[in-house]
C-alpha cells in the first residue's frame, strides 16, 4: 500500500520518532488534555511531569493508541498515524507500561510476554520462547526468570515483566506510566539502569512521574503539565527543581521536607506485645513489641515487604496474630470492629480495593468505617462527601462519583479525610501505611498536616513509610522493620541516617 498522506516538513531521519500536536481529550466533566503538543526524539528520555490529574496518563494513552484524541494528530517519524488500539500502537513499535500492570497472575513470565502476540504461532515452543525472553531481559539489565509465575513476583519484578513484554515485541518507543510510584528506592535505581540501557540501544522513552528528584536524574527533556495543558518544557541542563515545581503546582513550593515540631507524648495508648504472624512456613512478624504513646508519631521505616502490611493489619484488628496481644487504652483488640470502637483509624497500604470500595461512590465510601446503626443514610453521606471534596480540594465530578474514577491522589485524600478528619470524633490511635506514596506535592502536604493534627489532638500515630525523609521529618521515635523484626529503635534526636539505612538493609 502506498502512502499518499500529508507529510510534515520535519519528516525524515531527523524527525521526532513520535509526536502529537493539538491533542484534545475530554472526559465527562474534565478536559483531560487541552491542545497539547509533545514530541519525542530518538534515544532520549522525555519526562512528562505533573501532579495527579494533570493529564499525563491520558497523553501517554493517546500516544500508544489506547485513547483516540478528539482533536489533534499523532505523528510517527513525521507521518500522521491513526492508532485505534494499543495493538496498532505496538505495530508501530510503541508500547506502554501501565501504572497498574496487566499481567495474568497464574501465567509464567514467558506466557505473559507472548500473550496476545500476533507473531505467536499455533504451538507454544516454550523452550525457545523462554530463551528469547531471557535474552531480551538480559540485554537490558532486567533480571527475571522466564519460568516464574507472576503471583510470586514483587511489584518491581512485575514491572520488569511488563517492560520485557514491550521489548520482546520489538517496541522502540516505551511509555512508562508512573513506573516508580510503587517501587522501593533500590528498585527505582535498577529501573534507571534499564532505562539507560534502552536509550543506549537507540530506543526512546517517555517517562511519567511526579517526583522531582528522579526526574532531574533521568530525563533528557522535561515537559511539565498542569490541568491538561503544557505549562513548560525544559532540557535537563536547564532543569531547576524550583522552577519545575512552580510549573507543576502553579505556585512556589517549599521543597525541603518540612520539619514538624515534636509532639509531647503522654501515656501509652497502643501496645503490642509479642505479636507474631505466621503464614505456613513464612514468619511475617516475629515477636514484635511496640508501644505508641498519646500525642506522638512513631515512624516505622523499612523496605516494604518486611512485615509492614501484617503489622498494620494486626494493629488495626483486621488480621488476627498467630500469637501475642494488641491493646488500645487497655482494651484488647481482636477484630476490626473492636479496633474501631476503641478509636483506631487505619489508612491501609492498598487504597482502592481495601481502603475504598472502587464501585461505590465517594459518599458511600465515607460510610465504610463510620459507626453505623441498623440504618444508613446515603443522603447524609453525600453531604459529608461534598464537605470533604470542598475542604480538601478533591478533584472529583461530585459526591456520587465512583471512587475508581478518582486519580490516586484524590482517592487518598478521600480515604485519609475519612479516617482522620471525619465524624466529629478525633481518633485515639492512627495507623497509617504509606499514606503519601505516589501523591503529588500538594496532596502530600495535606496528608502530612492531617497526621500532624492528629498528633496535636493527642492521638498516638504509627506512621509506616518507605520514605525515610518523611519518617525523619515527622516521627518522634523511629523503629526499623527488617524481616519481621524490629532491627533498630531510635529517638528523633539520636536518629542517625546511616545507622537507619544499615538497619533497613539488615546490616547490623
Amino acid at each position, binding site marked *: *500500500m502506498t*502512502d499518499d*498522506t*500529508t507529510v510534515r516538513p520535519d519528516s525524515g531521519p531527523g524527525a521526532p520518532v513520535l509526536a502529537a500536536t493539538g491533542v484534545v481529550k475530554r*472526559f*465527562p466533566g474534565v478536559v483531560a488534555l487541552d491542545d497539547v503538543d509533545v514530541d519525542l526524539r530518538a534515544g532520549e528520555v522525555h519526562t512528562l511531569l505533573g501532579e495527579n490529574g494533570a493529564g499525563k496518563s491520558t497523553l501517554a494513552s493517546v500516544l500508544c493508541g489506547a485513547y*483516540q484524541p478528539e482533536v489533534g*494528530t499523532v505523528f*510517527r517519524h513525521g*507521518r*500522521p*498515524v*491513526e492508532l485505534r488500539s494499543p*495493538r*496498532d500502537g505496538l*505495530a*508501530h*513499535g510503541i508500547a506502554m507500561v501501565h501504572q497498574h500492570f496487566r499481567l495474568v497472575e497464574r501465567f509464567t513470565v514467558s506466557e505473559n510476554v507472548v500473550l496476545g502476540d*500476533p*507473531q505467536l504461532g499455533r504451538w507454544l515452543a516454550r523452550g525457545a520462547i523462554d530463551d528469547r525472553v531471557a535474552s531480551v531481559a538480559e540485554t537490558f539489565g532486567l533480571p527475571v526468570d522466564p519460568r516464574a509465575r507472576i503471583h510470586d513476583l514483587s511489584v518491581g519484578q512485575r514491572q520488569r515483566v511488563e517492560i520485557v513484554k514491550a521489548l520482546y515485541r520489538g517496541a522502540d518507543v516505551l511509555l512508562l506510566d508512573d513506573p516508580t510510584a510503587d517501587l522501593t528506592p533500590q528498585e527505582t535505581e535498577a529501573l534507571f539502569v534499564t532505562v539507560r540501557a534502552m536509550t543506549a540501544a537507540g530506543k526512546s522513552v517517555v517517562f511519567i512521574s511526579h517526583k522531582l528528584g528522579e526526574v532531574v536524574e533521568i530525563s533528557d527533556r522535561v515537559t511539565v503539565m498542569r490541568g491538561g495543558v503544557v505549562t513548560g518544557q525544559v532540557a535537563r541542563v536547564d532543569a531547576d527543581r524550583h522552577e519545575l515545581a512552580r510549573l507543576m503546582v502553579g505556585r512556589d513550593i517549599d521543597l525541603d521536607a518540612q520539619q514538624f515540631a515534636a509532639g509531647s507524648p503522654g501515656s501509652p495508648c497502643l501496645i503490642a506485645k509479642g505479636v507474631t504472624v505466621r503464614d505456613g512456613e513464612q514468619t511475617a512478624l516475629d515477636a514484635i513489641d511496640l508501644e505508641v504513646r498519646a500525642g506522638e508519631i512513631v515512624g516505622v521505616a523499612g523496605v516494604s515487604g518486611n512485615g509492614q502490611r501484617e503489622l498494620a493489619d494486626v494493629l*488495626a*484488628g*483486621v488480621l488476627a496474630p498467630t500469637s501475642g496481644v494488641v491493646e488500645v487504652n487497655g482494651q484488647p483488640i481482636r*477484630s*476490626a*470492629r473492636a*479496633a*474501631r470502637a476503641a478509636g483506631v483509624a*487505619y489508612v*491501609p497500604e*492498598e487504597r482502592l*480495593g*481495601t*481502603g*475504598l*470500595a*472502587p*464501585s*461505590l461512590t465517594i459518599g*458511600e465510601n465515607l*460510610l*465504610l*468505617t463510620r459507626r*453505623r*446503626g*441498623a*440504618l*444508613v*443514610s*446515603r443522603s447524609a453521606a453525600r453531604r459529608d462527601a461534598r464537605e470533604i471534596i470542598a475542604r480538601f480540594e478533591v478533584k472529583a*465530578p461530585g459526591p456520587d*462519583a*465512583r471512587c475508581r*474514577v478518582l486519580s490516586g491522589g484524590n482517592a487518598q485524600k478521600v480515604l485519609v479525610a475519612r479516617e482522620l478528619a471525619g465524624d466529629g470524633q478525633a481518633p485515639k490511635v492512627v495507623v497509617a501505611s504509606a499514606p503519601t506514596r505516589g501523591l503529588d506535592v500538594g496532596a502530600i502536604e495535606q496528608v502530612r498536616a492531617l497526621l500532624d493534627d492528629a498528633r496535636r489532638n493527642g492521638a498516638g500515630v504509627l506512621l509506616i513509610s518507605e520514605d525515610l525523609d518523611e519518617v525523619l521529618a515527622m516521627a518522634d521515635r523511629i523503629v526499623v522493620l527488617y524481616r519481621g523484626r524490629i532491627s533498630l529503635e531510635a529517638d528523633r534526636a539520636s536518629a542517625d541516617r546511616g545507622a537507619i539505612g544499615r538497619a533497613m538493609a539488615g546490616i547490623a
Partner: protein
Amino acid sequence: MIVVRLERRVATPRWIGVAVPVASVFAALVLAGVFFVLTDRPPLTVYSEMFDAAFGDVQGVKNTLVSATPLVFTGLAAAFAMRMGLYNIGGEGQLYAGAIAAAGAALLWTADLSTPIAIAVVFVAGAVGGMAWMLVPALARALLGTSEIVTTLMMVLVADVVLDYLISGSTSYWRDPLTIGFPQGKEIPDAAQFTRWFDARITVALPIAIVTAAIVWFVRNRTSFGYGQDVIGDAPHAARYAGISERRTVLVTLLVSGALAGMAGAAEIGGRIYKLEPSSLRLGLGFTGIVIAALARSNALGVLVAAFFLGGLRNAGQSVQAVADLDLPKSVALMLEGFILLCFLGGQVFSTHRLRIVRREPARRARASAGASS
C-alpha cells in the same frame, strides 16, 4: 467515512437502566417475529392478540396481576442475591419446598384458625421451607466457598423428586387418601384458602408481594446490612478492612433469598392451587424470576415492573392458545421470555460501553502498511 465504535463508559447514566430493558424487549419481539413469519403467522396479529389478552382490558390486567404475583417473589429472590454477586439459580426448587411447607402447615394447623392467622401461617411456612432448601447451599458457600450456582441448581432436581414422591410415590401426609386412581394432594382448610377479590384470583398475596418488594428495597438501600452487601459485592478486602463479616452477610443473603422464593410457593398454594399438586406448581416460575431480576437490574422496585410485564406475557401465552386461527401453543410465552433474556444480556454491553459514531476525513487515514499485521 463513518466508523461506529464501542467505547467504554466512564459512568452509567440513569436512563440506561430503563432504555436497555425496553430496547431488549423490542429486539426480542423482532427476533421472535421471524419465527412467526416463517410459520405463516402474521407477527403483528400475534402480538396484538397477546397484548390485548395481557393488558387490553380489565379482565386481562386482572389475570396479568394474578400471574405476576408469584413472579414478584421469585424475582425478588433472585434479585436480592444478584445485587451482591450471588446467583441463586434454584428459586424453582425453593418454591417447591416453600409450597410443600406451606401446604403441610396449612393442613396441620389452620383448620380452626381465623383467616389472617392462617394467611400468616401459610406464608411463614413457605418462607421457612424455602430457607431450609437453601440451607445447605448457603452454608457451603459461606463456609467453603462452594459455588452457589451449582448447588442451588442441583437442589431443584432434588425438590422435583421430593414433590413427586410426596404425591404419587407414597401415601404421605400431603396426599389425599380418598382419591382413587390418579393421586392428588389433600385440599387445605378453607381458612388457608385466600379470598378472591374483584372476581378474579387476585388475593392477599398481591399486596403482600408489593409490601415485600418495598421491604426488600428498604433493606438493600437504607440499612447497614444492605450497605454491607454492596461493599462485599464490590470489594471483599474493603469489607474485611471495615469489619463487615462476609460469611455472615453471604449466609443471611442466601437464606433470605431462599425464603423469598419459598413465599412464592406459599402464594401459589394459598392463592391458586389449594393443595400440593406437582403439575400445577411446575410452571418454571422460579426460573422466570431470574429473568425478572436481570431485567430489573436487581432493583426491588424494578422487579415489580418486570414481574407485571412477564406475568402479562405468561397470561397472554395462555390466551393466544385459544385463538383458533393462530394455532399457537402457550409456550410462545416461554420462547419470548427466552428471547428477551438473550437480548437483554446482549444489551448489557451498552451499560458499560457506548456506541460512538466517528466521522473521519479520508486524508487522515494514514496507517503505515508495514504495521498492519494480523
